[in-house]
Structure formats: C-alpha cells, structure tokens
C-alpha cells in the first residue's frame, strides 16, 4: 500500500513572549544571546504513517493538539522539528471559511472553486453537483450573509468536498449540521474512501468515529497516547474521559495543571538560529549589499543634482 502521510518525530512549539517587542527582535534574530525563551509544546514527538484509502480519526480533549495536527497536515502551519512526508493534495474542510458574505451562494461557489485552482470548465461541471449536495433551495441566489448557520456550513461543506483533494481533513465540520446532513456527508466520505482517498476526521462523537474510521489517533496534551483500531482506541478514550469526569473538581484541576506543566519548557532560541552557518550569512550579506549599492549611488547623484 502507498504511504500518503508520514510523520517522523514531529514537534510543534509556540514561543511565548512576555513582551511584543521580544517577538520582533526574535523575528530579525537580534535577541540577546543569553536570553532563554519560554515555549509551549503543542505537539511532542508525533510519529505515525497513514496509507492510501484509510480514514483516520483524531480524538482528544480540548487543547490536546488535534487542530494543530490537522493544520500541519493541511499545510496551514509548519512543524518546528521533525520530518513530514505528504503525498498528494490536501484540503481542510473548514465550514464557513472563505465564504464572502456579500456575494450570493452561486458566486461563492465560483469564487471558492477558483481559489482551489479549478479551471472554468471544471467549475461549470461541478456547480450543479454542489447545489444539489448543499440542498438549500432558492437561497443559492441570495447573499450568504442572509443564510442561517446551518445553510452556511452546508454550502461550505458542499464546495469543499467537490474540489477533489487526495487527502481530506475534516475538523469538527459535521457537528454543525443536523443528523440528516451529517449522514449525507458520511455517505460522501465513504464514497471518497472507495476512491482510495485518505481522510482525517476530527470529531467528539464516538459513534461517528467507530462507524467511519479505520484507525484512531488519541492525542493527550500534545503527545500521541495511542494509535490503533478505532473501536479499541475510542473505548479506551471513553474510559479515560469517564475516569476524568468522576474526579472531584480539585483533582481535575491538579491533573490538568500537572499535564499542562509538562508542555512548557525553556529553550535557547539562538541555538536553532545558528544552524544557518556563517558562510551562508556572509554570502547573503554580499548579495544584499549588491542590491542596495546601485540605489545608494544613484541617490547621491540625484541629491548632488548630477
């Protein structure tokens, strides 16, 4: 089977700055050498491999890194460390994103398909399918700002699934629509699965997970706690949440504090920056000077009135 997505020891950290000015200094790598930065480790040492035609569920409590992981797969943000191999086009299905409120549904279909890189002919071809799938009747010719939130998510979902990606990431997109629409979406995704597409599925619904996913990844405070057969992992996850819910409020707080504490660390940011070696830096400096020098020369000429 062909590997679609492969993560090897992937980390994602966010630098926490006490002051905004530190962020700027860091941007230009000007910060003082001794200073250490506080970092939040959103994902820590994640490794897994996903094959063609698989559907993978992502479970975990809020803030466990599910969205960070799906954003990395979708290419929205970059990992800090580690190797990522992605074979194919990815598309994140984010329900309302990218709909322009003052344009009509029809115009939004054209605009969003266009932004996904579909050709004019292809857009004409899929438009009837999208309208049919969204199933919002005459509202398709009304401005999107007049839509209900359900209609918006229907239209958004309909457009996204018709842009023909190889790897789909569905980030809690189904939780908005009603159960009939959710069923329709699940059917559509089963169709994708048969076509050999890879699907990542973020959801809090254990039922949908078990019904739809082949394997499930359980993220816990940024670490990969378990990966495996969907029924086993989802059951284990439910056992964990049940255990957690039974704790007293103080115990819950203590547990959260302990786990979150593990996600902070202090690192020497400069260390990372030094990877770009001296030689490269000098050549960059020379290039930049070469670009600026003629402008400076002509500026002087101009000022002198030549």
């Amino acid at each position, binding site marked *: 089977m062909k590997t679609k997505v492969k993560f090897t020891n992937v980390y994602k950290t966010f630098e926490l700055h006490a002051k905004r000015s530190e962020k700027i200094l860091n941007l230009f790598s000007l910060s003082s050498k001794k200073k250490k930065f506080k970092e939040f480790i959103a994902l820590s040492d994640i490794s897994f491999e996903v094959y063609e035609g698989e559907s993978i569920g992502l479970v975990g409590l809020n803030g466990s890194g599910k969205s960070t992981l799906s954003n990395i797969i979708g290419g929205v943000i970059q990992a800090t460390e580690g190797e990522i191999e992605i074979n194919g086009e990815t598309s994140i299905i984010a329900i309302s994103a990218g709909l322009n409120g003052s344009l009509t549904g029809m115009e939004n279909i054209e605009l969003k398909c266009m*932004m996904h890189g579909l050709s004019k002919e292809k857009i004409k071809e899929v438009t009837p399918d999208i309208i049919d799938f969204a199933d919002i009747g005459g509202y398709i010719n009304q401005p999107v700002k007049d839509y209900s939130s359900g209609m918006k998510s229907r239209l958004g979902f309909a457009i996204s699934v018709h842009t023909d990606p190889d790897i789909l990431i569905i980030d809690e997109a189904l939780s908005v629509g009603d159960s009939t629409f959710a069923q329709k979406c699940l059917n559509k995704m089963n169709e994708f699965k048969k076509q050999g597409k890879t699907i990542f599925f973020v959801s809090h619904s254990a039922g949908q997970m078990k019904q739809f996913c082949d394997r499930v990844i359980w993220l816990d405070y940024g670490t990969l706690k378990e990966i495996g057969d969907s029924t086993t992992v989802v059951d284990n996850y439910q056992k964990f949440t049940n255990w957690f819910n039974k704790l007293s409020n103080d115990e819950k707080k203590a547990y959260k504090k302990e786990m979150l504490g593990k996600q902070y660390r202090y690192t020497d940011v400069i260390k990372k920056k030094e990877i770009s070696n001296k030689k490269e830096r000098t050549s960059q400096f020379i290039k930049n000077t070469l670009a600026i020098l003629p402008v400076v020369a002509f500026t002087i000429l101009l000022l002198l009135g030549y």
Partner: protein
Amino acid sequence: MFNSVRQVIREQIEFRDLIFRMAKFENKGMYQVHYLGTFWQFLSPAIQVAIYWFVFSTIRGGAPVGETPFFLWLIIGLIPWFFISPSIIQGSNSVYQKIGLVSKMNFPVSVLPTIRIVSNSNQFFVMLGILIVIALSYGVKPSIYNIQFIYYLICLFAFLFAFSLLSSTIATLIRDYQTALQSVMRMLLYMSPVMWDTSLISRTFPVVGPLLENILRLNPLYYIIEGFRDSILGRAWFFEDMVYTGYFWLLTLCLLYFGAKIHMKFRKNFMDYL
C-alpha cells in the same frame, strides 16, 4: 541571486487568469449591496474631481504652473494619486486580510497584492478617460510625447507591484507598519508634486531650495506623477533625464528583490505571526 524574484514573477504569469477573475469578484463583492453597484467606482472619484474643479477653477483660481492652467495641472497628478494611494494601502493589507482564508488551500499568496492592484485599476482607467476629456477641453493638442504615457503606466504598475509585495509581508509581521503607512501616505500627498509645484521651494529658498527639491525627487511617486505631466503636456522625454530614470528603476528592482526574498522566506509561516 534572483531565484525568489523569478518565482514570484512566474506565479503572477501562471495565475494571471485567477488574478483577473478574483479582482472581478472583489469589486462585485464590494458593491453588491449598493443600488448603483459598480457605478460608484466612477461616481466617487468623479465627485472628488468636481470638488477640486469647483475650488481651483472657479472660486480660488490658483496660479497657472508655467503655461498650464492650475486645474489641468492638478488633475493630471490627482487622478494617478487616487489610484496609487488606495492601491498601496490595500495592497499592503491584502496578505494580512486574506491569509486566514487562503492558507487552508493551495493558493499562491504572492498574487494577493496584485489582485488588489488589478481590482483598483478598473476605476483608474475610467478616470484616465475623464482625464483625456478634460485635457482636450483645455485645448491640449495631441503630440508625439503622448506615447510615453504607456511607458509611465508600466513604471506605475511595476512600482506598485514591487512595493506592495514587500509592504504586504512587513504589514503581516508587524501590524504597526500598516497604521504608520496610512499616515505616511497622507503626508506623501503633500510631499509629492500633486497639489503644488515643487519648484516653488527653489524660488523661495534660493540657497537650500535646490537640495530640498532633490530630496523630494527621491520619492519614486514624484517620478511617475511628473512623468504623466511630461507625457500629456508634451514637456520632455523620459530618456532626457537618465540619472532619474536609472534611479527609479534601480529602486523598483531593489524593492522587488527584497520584497520577493522576504515574501518567500515568510510565506509558509504567515499563520504563525497572526
């Protein structure tokens, strides 16, 4: 050395169709809720021109610049300015505004500033039509100099592209820049030869005046606006002043070089800086 410049330009050419169609949608979206629709693109600058005409051609007069009536002189500078100023400000803001939307798809981010420039050009070309009518009604005779108007249009678009590419990256990383840019643009209206003839300085301060005027000429918009006047009023050829032409193009290339470089460096990480 020019790898990133090449890639950015290649993206503009490859996605030219996308640029024009997205620009059309931008305009459509902006005026969708208006009863007069895209007619406003013509109406709002026309009203502004009418006000300037009312003040400078009927009430206050204004001394002619050289042999050119003041209103005609003013309007040749003002019409490009109505295009330049919003294009620079919106072009700089374009990446920040749209990145959340386009990062979720495979979208060439470098075309975002270009889309803003293109969507504003519609209005600009309508205004150029009005400008021609005004110039003819003031008795400007067509001359061979008019041809270089095309050259200055190329200058204008090249500069806007290079500047907004650089500017859009900076404005995404440092938000203060966008606010500062708006103030600078407001100031630049009076530092460019739009509202007044800069040779006034040399006449008022004979000693330091020429140097001050040369400092004002460092502003690349000065080159473009005076260039438009040269070509419409038939005053001079652009190659008569090679030092200034050289300065303008070197500056534009330098902006493009750094603009493309930092754009490519940060494009993958834009989301982290929001």
